[in-house]
């Protein structure tokens, strides 16, 4: 390897928080015009390292070098001045402002102190054209679908003319076509000499775009290699520190009687757009039903209807031959339904509460003795779930925010299990979760099913439905467009059911 032309370098950086060493003497170099992938399980220190490189956090030891000169970055503004940009995993956009206003935010174009809207719109239009996304720059960002919002976020970084760009899970909200566009943009940027840090849990896509791969584990840099020299197996082994080869999933047990039946379920949005069209399905005890579909297929709306969040929906839902019509969410949970929602931050966990309170929230009445809560009963039940689901926590009374994404997800799952549901609904159960926790969650799903629970796994990842489900339902544009057995069906059959029908109904 010839010595690369390094733009930004973190040399021997450590970051010590009270009680933890988040980063331990890490050296990370960003060569000009290259894509450097940063990989690690949640809690390995990726985000911490990126925060240091972006000026959001300051290392307690070690320093940063830009073009070989030592620099100190105390804030995002400093990073901005050095033309170092970051695209966060969660979108940082103002939904009330237009596309152009978002792109030019904090560096507005003005004429003698007055906003020059036309020049801003032109700039935005030019950049959007470069990304092959001719979105009207005057559209309020809140009106755009998530994928286009992600594009706006990227344009926002481009407008700053960065020389180093960090991308934290940039594709989590993008469709395959949008990812292809993003990759072309990345190649275009690297051709102009921009150094890129790329973080993703999607390893296949990461190997496709990255020039080099750096693996963090427990705050230490454990491996670095050219991406051409490694494969997914190598990465997973370095990340987890144990040989790859997922534990064989428990064989599907015999399925029992039908527990859930949905007939002619339809839902219309306030603007008249159909969200669900005549959805019908059934689910047996001991069975895992995978529901696959692209973004906007109506998968989340389906689960919301089952949980009683849309009382205006037409059609009927039976749980164990009991009609659930007119029951609200609380009554449905009491009847034996439970759901782990898709967006952990927005609907899954309560950030201000402890791990314990998050876990017992849904089943609270079970821990009441008369009118009072029994702290010991709560503790016992929660501790049992911690060991059963192998939740890594430094203490049940600590804030939920002290847990990694994967462990927060397990807490959300534990909360459902503490209501002793018979039908469990999981919406994107492993989104933003590292590989290790992902396979753990998958095997938990299989174990629960073999114990007789009926489970629905909704996912936009083919691999996830494949390795958990007994039967796969494909949805597109609010309708069920196919049903397949999990084994013996080709990926492309599923993918086409998810997309061809979408065009037909468009």
């Amino acid at each position: 390897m010839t010595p690369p032309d390094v733009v930004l370098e973190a040399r021997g950086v450590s970051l010590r928080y009270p009680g933890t060493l988040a980063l331990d003497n890490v050296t990370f170099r960003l060569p000009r015009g290259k894509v450097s992938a940063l990989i690690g399980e949640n809690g390995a220190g990726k985000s911490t390292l990126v925060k240091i490189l972006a000026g959001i956090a300051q290392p307690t030891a070690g320093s940063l070098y830009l073009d070989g000169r030592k620099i100190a970055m105390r804030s995002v503004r400093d990073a901005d001045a050095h033309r170092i940009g970051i695209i966060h995993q969660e979108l940082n956009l103002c939904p009330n402002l237009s596309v152009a206003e978002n792109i030019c935010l904090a560096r507005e174009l003005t004429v003698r102190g007055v906003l020059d809207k036309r020049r801003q719109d032109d700039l935005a239009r030019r950049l959007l054209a470069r990304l092959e996304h001719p979105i009207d720059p005057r559209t309020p960002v809140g009106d755009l679908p998530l994928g286009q919002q992600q594009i706006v976020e990227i344009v926002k970084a481009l407008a700053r003319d960065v020389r180093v760009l960090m991308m934290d899970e940039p594709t989590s909200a993008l469709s395959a076509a949008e990812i292809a566009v993003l990759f072309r943009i990345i190649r275009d940027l690297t051709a102009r000499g921009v150094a890129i840090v790329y973080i993703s849990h999607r390893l296949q896509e990461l190997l496709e775009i990255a020039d080099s791969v750096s693996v963090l584990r427990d705050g230490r840099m454990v491996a670095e290699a050219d991406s051409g020299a490694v494969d997914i197996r190598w990465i997973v082994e370095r990340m987890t520190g144990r040989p790859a080869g997922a534990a064989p999933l428990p064989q599907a047990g015999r399925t029992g009687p039908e527990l859930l039946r949905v007939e002619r379920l339809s839902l219309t949005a306030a603007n008249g757009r159909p969200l669900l069209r005549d959805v019908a399905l059934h689910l047996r005890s001991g069975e895992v039903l995978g529901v696959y579909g692209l973004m906007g297929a109506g998968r989340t709306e389906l689960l919301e209807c089952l949980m009683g969040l849309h009382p205006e929906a037409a059609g009927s839902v039976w749980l164990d031959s009991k009609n659930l019509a007119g029951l609200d969410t609380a009554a449905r949970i009491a009847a034996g339904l439970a759901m782990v929602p898709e967006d952990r931050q927005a609907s899954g966990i309560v950030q201000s509460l402890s791990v314990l309170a998050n876990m017992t929230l849904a089943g609270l009445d079970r821990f009441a003795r008369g009118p009072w809560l029994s702290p010991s009963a709560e503790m016992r039940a929660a501790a049992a779930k911690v060991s059963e689901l192998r939740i890594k926590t430094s203490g049940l009374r600590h804030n939920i925010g002290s847990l990694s994404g994967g462990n927060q997800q397990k807490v959300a799952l534990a909360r459902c299990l503490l209501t002793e549901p018979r039908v469990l609904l999981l919406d994107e159960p492993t989104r933003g979760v590292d590989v290790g926790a992902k396979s753990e969650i998958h095997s938990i799903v299989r174990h629960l099913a073999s114990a007789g629970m009926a489970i629905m796994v909704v996912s936009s990842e083919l691999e996830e439905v494949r390795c958990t489900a007994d039967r796969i339902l494909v949805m597109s544009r609010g309708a069920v467009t196919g049903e397949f057995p999990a084994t013996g069906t080709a990926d492309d059959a599923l993918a086409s059911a998810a997309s061809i029908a979408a065009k037909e109904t468009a």
Partner: protein
Amino acid sequence: MISVSPAALLFRLRALIVLIALVAAFAAMSPAFLTGGNLTILVKHVAINAILAVGMTFVILAGGIDLSVGSVAGLAAIIAGGLIHSGLVLRSFGVVVYFHTWLVIVAAILGGVLVGAINGLLVSQLRVAPFIATLGSLYVARGTALLISNGATFPNLDGKPELGNTGFPALGAGALLGIPAPIWLMLLFAAAGMFLAERTPFGRRVYAVGGNQRAAELSGVRVKRIQCATYIISGGCAATVGLIIAAQLDAAHPATGETFELNAIAAVVLGGTSLMGGRGGVGGTIIGAFVIGVLADGLILMGVSEFWQIVIKGLVIVLAVVLDQMQQRYSRRAGAAWRS
């Protein structure tokens, strides 16, 4: 439990430490401060604000705000005063009904609960912003109080033995074991509030609704009922305060409780409850109410000008919130290490 460094612990207990420091400072500077007479007056003042603030704490924990509490106190005072003083006039029957004192108290509290329920329905069912909904009932309740009494004060609430409605002033002036009734009531409300918040499913659900409404709903929490209940609690607390004031004065004035909502909110915030909801507690609120009360009393004893007192109160409230933000940033940073 996590091992907390002594510095962090001191920081977390800062409201209590500030309170102790204030008491110590005033005791040192003014010999009159620590006398039994002064302390009794002080705590009786604190009791009024503390009871309002206990109810307010539930509303704020669930992510709302209740601006109507001062007016509700006034309305309850007028309902009680009117019923004792002139009875319930039933014109079509040509009779005037006088109620037993306990029924008067129940009627006044029901008046407060009713306003609270209306606030709750406006916020939860009709999705009116809490600030606006309770601003509206602030005016409506105050106006209703003025209408009932025609703007006048109902004097002399001793009642008449032949009407069976005596004893009302005891609520303000009575004492048990040498401790005045309002202080007992404060202790009762504080204890009940703490238990409700910390030790019941209802309390936990209030925290969850304030912390993340959607997550709470998906967990089967009936969010609207919880929101409604917090306003009802607040209305009930406010009505109690109105009764105490009327009893203390032995007269019901329609302006009772004007601007008290601001003192109640200040006590809640000083006690460390986040205006965003989900964080804080009743214990902190009681300390917050005492900080405000001690500060006011001490500054008066020191002869500080009334105008300076107002400025100092404002500064203390802002300072408390600044410290609160600092603590949250600190604990978030400590948490971020794990999350990274």
